[in-house]
């Protein structure tokens, strides 16, 4: 096969996909602000996407916080900087690990769930049924999920940040010989509102990405169980990559 043909075809395919995702995201975002609003659906999605994700996010955060404290202690000991453990744990968790790890965990749990649910609705004609019942699928199905994910992820990440710092605290006072009161005072003194704002901004953007990628792949799925499975996989992969890319972009904008 002609290599130029292959490269051209791949490039065009990528551009087409990028355009389709962008158009879908814009339409999904617009649908969140258009009447009618389905408050019951939004509430249900808040519970499913947000509240029921709390255990997995909390467990991830506590272990990461604890491991981070141990690593910083070992690394800091090389140049007599062990006392910086509380400062670096709170900075690392709040600005980076809290939002990114919560986002990645939810990319697996929530994005795949949305893609599978909407994909099944697509292949069983439930989305067509919505249209014939005078209901816009974007407003009824997608807007509540996007709204719930975008608003609930900052709350989840706030919880993850606190739990992650507590993980570091527990290791600090139990294994590393820190005084509890001093550890907490160092943590609070070092933390700035700007760090929390960055964490929340990232979380909201990751929530939007997770819901939109799940909905996009589910909405376009076809071909029965195989198609729904592929939609779930594609949703997780694309949400994961986009979260990591968005994380870098937001961090670099914030730093400058």
């Amino acid at each position, binding site marked *: 096969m002609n290599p130029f043909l292959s490269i051209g075809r791949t490039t065009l395919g990528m551009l087409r996909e990028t355009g389709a995702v962008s158009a879908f995201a814009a339409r999904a975002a617009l649908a969140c602000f258009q009447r009618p609003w*389905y408050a019951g659906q939004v509430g249900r999605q808040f519970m499913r996407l947000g509240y029921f994700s709390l255990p997995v996010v909390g467990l991830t955060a506590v272990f990461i916080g604890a491991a981070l404290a141990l690593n910083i202690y070992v690394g800091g000991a090389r140049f007599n900087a062990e006392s910086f453990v509380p400062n670096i744990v709170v900075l690392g968790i709040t600005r980076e690990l809290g939002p990114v790890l919560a986002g990645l965990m939810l990319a697996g749990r929530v994005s795949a769930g949305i893609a599978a649910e909407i994909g099944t*609705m697509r292949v069983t004609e*439930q989305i067509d049924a919505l*249209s014939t*019942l005078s209901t816009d699928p974007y407003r*009824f199905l997608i807007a509540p999920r996007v709204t719930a994910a975008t608003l609930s992820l900052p709350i989840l990440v706030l919880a993850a940040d606190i739990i992650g710092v507590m993980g570091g605290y527990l290791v600090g006072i139990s294994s590393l010989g820190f005084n509890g009161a001093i550890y907490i005072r160092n943590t609070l003194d070092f933390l700035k509102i700007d760090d929390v704002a960055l964490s929340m901004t990232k979380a909201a953007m990751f929530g939007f990405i997770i819901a939109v990628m799940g909905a996009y792949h589910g909405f376009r799925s076809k071909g029965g169980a195989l198609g729904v499975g592929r939609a779930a996989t594609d949703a997780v992969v694309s949400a994961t990559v986009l979260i990591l890319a968005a994380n870098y972009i937001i961090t670099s904008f914030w730093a400058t």
Partner: protein
Amino acid sequence: MDTAPLPPAPKLMLAGVEKTLGGRKVLRGVDLDVAHGRSLVVIGGSGVGKSVTLKCALGLMTPDAGQVLIDGQDVTHLKGGERQRLAAKFGMLFQGGALFDSLPIWENVAFRLIYSQKVPRKEAKARAIETMRKVRLAPEFAERFPIELSGGMQKRASLARAIIARPEILFFDEPTTGLDPITADAINDLIVEMVRDLGSAAISITHDMASARKIADEIAMIYEGRIVWRGPAASIDQSGDARVDQFIHGRAEGPIQAVV
């Protein structure tokens, strides 16, 4: 001077509808119309364009060429709110039922009332149960979820959802597929009864000839993306068209090549 009244405009009309999917021209100029209070059944084998015809009529697909007219108005390219308002005239029974898994049966049936017409839930539930009774679905199933119902019951619930708002045009997509003959006959009886009670125009697609004979005033046959025959249901056995004869008698030999 001739004073004979003009015949009423068809409730639904498809004129020269063409549609290409995945590089294959599925519809090559479909012409169909159905009048108020009449039931038209479109028959044809698998993959000849029956479902695509129905989706074009419903606005779920936009034709590449041709027109879809409702009460003489061209609705081919309606979008957004206008399309949603038009859909209020439609009732659709999907092949697999297409009931919403996450909602109980009564809320499925009352979906249009609650989410589109903003009828209070209590009143919507009462109307849903009344409509369930009409399709012989006992009220005790109102709180069940679709997964807990048999295929025949799901079809009844889907039929109840289609008729609850008294639509002007009813669409039936393979209404008896996947049902045993007795349940299929019961669904056919219900369709005839509901179409008669509502006085709606009805358009159905099926390859089940027993169903077609029972629910149709007229039958049209689609083949290779075109309507190749149309006539009263009672005269289908004397169609004079070899393709129709082959199809209604289910013969592998004839002008239509079986796809295996």
